[in-house]
């Protein structure tokens, strides 16, 4: 049952991921954003299979709830019609597919040759305790946690500065 779910979720993740970047039917960024939501949701299914329940919830809350909404806001602010008029450059697309397929082939081949699936250190069954995760986060990793909260503050100030700049310039000229 778990094997079947793994195959379903990973196929969904990869299919929607492909449709985010290369959709033959629509060049609209809104379509890409919607497929990104589907990718994120099926990936949180994979997280549940890996017993990372807290991360699955955070993935849906932060990505599908906040990041995608931000993307959609910005897409609606900007002009999406121009993008649809531009075509895929056939040669560039072909070269992109070829180089990326080569990279994926090399890495997958090296994963296969390393025999990582049979390594004795890598056959655990997962520790899915959200309680342990929180305990570790606030004891062992408390300094990185504080630094990340500072980073969020800096990002917030940066966003306000970046979107305010134009108005202040207008006031100066007046």
């Amino acid at each position, binding site marked *: 049952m778990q*094997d079947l779910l*793994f195959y379903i979720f*990973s196929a969904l*993740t*990869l299919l929607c*991921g492909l449709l*985010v*970047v*290369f959709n033959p039917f629509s060049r609209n*960024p809104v379509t*890409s954003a919607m497929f*990104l939501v589907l*990718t994120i949701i099926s*990936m949180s299914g*994979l997280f549940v299979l*890996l*017993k*990372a329940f807290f*991360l699955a919830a955070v*993935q849906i809350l*932060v*990505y599908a709830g*906040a*990041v995608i909404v*931000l*993307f959609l806001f*910005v897409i609606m*602010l*900007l002009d999406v019609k121009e*993008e649809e008029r*531009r075509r895929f450059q056939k040669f560039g*697309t072909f070269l*992109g*597919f070829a180089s*990326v*397929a080569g990279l*994926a082939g090399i890495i*997958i081949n090296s*994963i*296969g040759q390393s025999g*990582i*699936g049979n390594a004795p250190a*890598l*056959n*655990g*069954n*997962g*520790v899915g305790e959200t309680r*342990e995760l929180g305990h570790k986060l606030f004891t062992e*990793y408390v300094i*990185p946690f504080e630094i*990340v909260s500072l980073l*969020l503050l*800096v*990002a*917030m100030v*940066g966003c306000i500065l*970046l*979107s305010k700049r*134009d108005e202040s310039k207008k006031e100066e000229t007046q």
Partner: protein
Amino acid sequence: MIGVEHYLVVSVVLFCLGLLGLIIRRNLIVMYMGLELMLNAANLALVAFSHYRNNLDGQIMVFFIITVAAAEVAVGLALIVALYRKRQTNDVNDLTSMKL
């Protein structure tokens, strides 16, 4: 039985899809979505290792990556909006003022 290598293969393919998005798309917003895909692929690999090693450190790292990615998206999209206000475009083919 699904082992760690299955998850790693999914993660690699997803990373390459994100890279493909960066290569073939010329719209800044869609390129950003490709970046998000690449970050998510790294998250998947970290969670898979954390599961198969019975070690929670990987999950904590993913927690931090999600936070940093959210901050990065906020700043990046603000930059795109500022750029659009100045240049009226968000296509990288039109943003060549730094070319020699």
